[in-house]
């Protein structure tokens, strides 16, 4: 592939302009300003301007900084990890299922661990969906079971087995101190320990979830903001179809 170099843009191509803000655990004074400048310079910025500094009470200070990047990144070398399946519309998904499968597909989902956020998983699973995109419940050929929130990994697996689910949907919203990483890793480990990993397509979603992260943690796919039921359904039915062909 040809190199494709890219630098941030302020008002002139390749000017490299970047805005930063951060706090420092030090008082707001000329040393603090110098520390802020040095921090930005350590980030490879030149022509750094600390355009604002203010005290945040004793021992903390806040900075707004502008500077310029000189070294472009080469986007031809980036591994863009997005779900590869071409998204289909609801109608297309339904047609796909009707054509390729002789039974309804079962999707079971929950917001797991101590996570009480349901709006995300509801947006994917419930009838009404979100932003004008219906949820899986409304898809012909899909049976959608939404267990709600605060469901522990064990219960989720148990229910998945009980309903002979094809796809398990996990939602994680709280990510502070990487609680979601622990929880998601534990789920994959649980499946593996019980020899169940290959029996399901497992998918995770949430505001701070990316496909890259999901793959890293051992999930089949990950979906973040601006993803809807048709996205996850497109992925899942294709993955199930591949799996079926593979097993044949």
């Amino acid at each position, binding site marked *: 592939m040809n190199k494709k170099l890219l630098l941030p843009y302020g008002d002139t191509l390749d000017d490299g302009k970047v805005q930063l*803000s*951060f*706090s420092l655990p030090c008082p707001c004074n000329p040393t603090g300003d110098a520390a802020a400048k040095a921090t930005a310079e350590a980030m490879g910025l030149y022509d750094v301007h600390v355009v604002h500094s*203010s*005290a*945040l*009470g*004793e*021992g*903390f200070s*806040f900075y707004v900084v502008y500077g310029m990047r000189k070294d472009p990144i080469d986007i031809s070398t980036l591994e863009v990890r997005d779900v590869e399946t071409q998204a289909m519309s609801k109608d297309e998904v339904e047609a796909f299922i009707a054509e390729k499968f002789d039974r309804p597909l079962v999707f079971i989902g929950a917001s797991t661990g*101590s*996570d*009480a956020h*349901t*709006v995300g998983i509801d947006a994917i699973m419930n009838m009404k969906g979100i932003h004008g995109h219906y949820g899986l419940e409304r898809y012909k050929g899909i049976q959608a079971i939404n267990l*709600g*929130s*605060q469901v522990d990994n064990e219960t989720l697996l148990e229910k998945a087995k009980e309903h002979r689910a094809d796809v398990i949907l996990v939602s994680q919203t*709280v990510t*502070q*101190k990487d*609680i979601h990483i622990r929880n998601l890793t534990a789920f994959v480990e649980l499946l593996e320990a019980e020899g169940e990993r290959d029996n399901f397509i497992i998918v995770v979603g949430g*505001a701070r979830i990316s496909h890259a992260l999901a793959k890293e943690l051992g999930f089949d796919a990950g979906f973040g*903001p601006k993803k809807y039921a048709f996205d996850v359904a497109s992925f899942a039915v294709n993955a199930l179809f591949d799996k079926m062909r593979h097993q044949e």
Partner: protein
Amino acid sequence: MQLAIDKTIMQDAREDAKAIAKAIKAFIDEKTTTSVERSILRLLGIDQATDFGVPLVNAVVDHIVEHGDLSRGVCHYMAHAVKKTDKSPKAIATLIASGKMHMKDFAKKAVPDYSVLTPYFLATEKIIQHQAKKRREHLHEYDVPEKYVIVATGNIYEDIKQALSAVEKGADIIAVIRTTGQSLLDYVPDGVTQEGFGGTYATQENFRLMREALDESTKTHGRYIKLVNYASGLCMPEIAVLGAIERLDMMLNDSLYGIIFRDINMQRTFIDQHFSRVIGAYSDIVINTGEDNYLTTTDAFDNAHTVIASQFINEQFASLAGMPSRLMGLGHAYEIDPAKPHSFLYEIANAQLSRQCFPNAPLKYMPPTKHMHGDIFNGIAQNTLFNIAAQLTGQNIHLLGMLTEAIHTPFVSDRALALNNAKHIETAMLALKDELTIKPGGMIEKRANDVLKDAKKLLESIREMGLFKALEKGTFADIARTQDGGKGLEGVFDKHPHYRNIPMERFMQALKAGESNE
């Protein structure tokens, strides 16, 4: 800035709510819970935990459940035990926890002489009264919204640093958010804690540490800084006791929140809530209710009336617990989709309607959260509109919105920016609400009356079917819960005919006596 609101509908709505609350009260009056009983033990001076981290109050109540009959209430057992051993309740609890004493035999005993407990209750009451007095000395009236920010690092020491920074930047109220799992714990962890997720454990020691730090900064800044935590979840009344002892000034306290968003059993938490509010009323602690959460979950325009309806119910629940309006921090929120035309007008209608329905309540006004996205710059603009709405409609407890709402719990700078914004608006617009009149019969006034009408209709239907049924139908936040479902039902017990909750009786009596000083 007043709206012409239909007074009759308002009155009718209040009547419906009263009937709804009374029906629940009648139901729960017959019952007690493990957490209510543990709270009584705490009021008897029993604190701390065993070496295995089991709080003594849990050890005692679990012991009674296992070996006795909790329906008689812990007062029954403790009165007998004190009488018999002449030891303090705490000493007795320690013995029980270590298996060196048994309550079993008291189960079948006759009504004890409860007066042996009086000195112990009195000791705690003194502390609580002392704290309430200290608060009253410091507090003066604000006529502008009080700026409320949260800290949520998970580590109480880090929380303290963040709180102090916020105070220097102008915060009036500091809320320590709880770690994500705590509301489902059926015990209150003991001692200082330094790790939590999305929040910090609520413990007596953590309360004390933060209170101490804030009292210190009250001295430096010459203004009283209020402290908030959560009397909610499975330990609702216990935390109310801890809050009263450690001088918290406000507590989030709303069964409906627990039922809907935490899947806590409704019977359990209604019972817990009643006692917790009695404690709060006695201790002069403002409660914060959670109606705002309905709007983060469902469309805020379509469901505005559910907030008003719920506020009326919460008002009556609080009232039945002897709480004066000045302690009722009823909740609502600025959550209308900013993409909706006229959103600001509709919001003013809602906020002003709450204001006029509950003129003496210190309303708790929550910022935009649902329609906050990663665009922190737009986030500031949303928060600015919210701050303006708070000013214009004279809200009291003003939870500041964070530009990074969609991203993380607040950084130290996020909070500072929010406080700057609120001060900016306050300075620019302080007198604006007195300068403006709203068009009679205009969009705003019409919307406010429509919402009130819908709220009244909803209350009417809840009154008919009862609150339990209404919750089973998903009336609030589109989330349905069953009367016997959810967490914590195993902690509910019918009262024995001889059951007594001595501190509740004492508190209610004191509240009745002092009723005139609302």
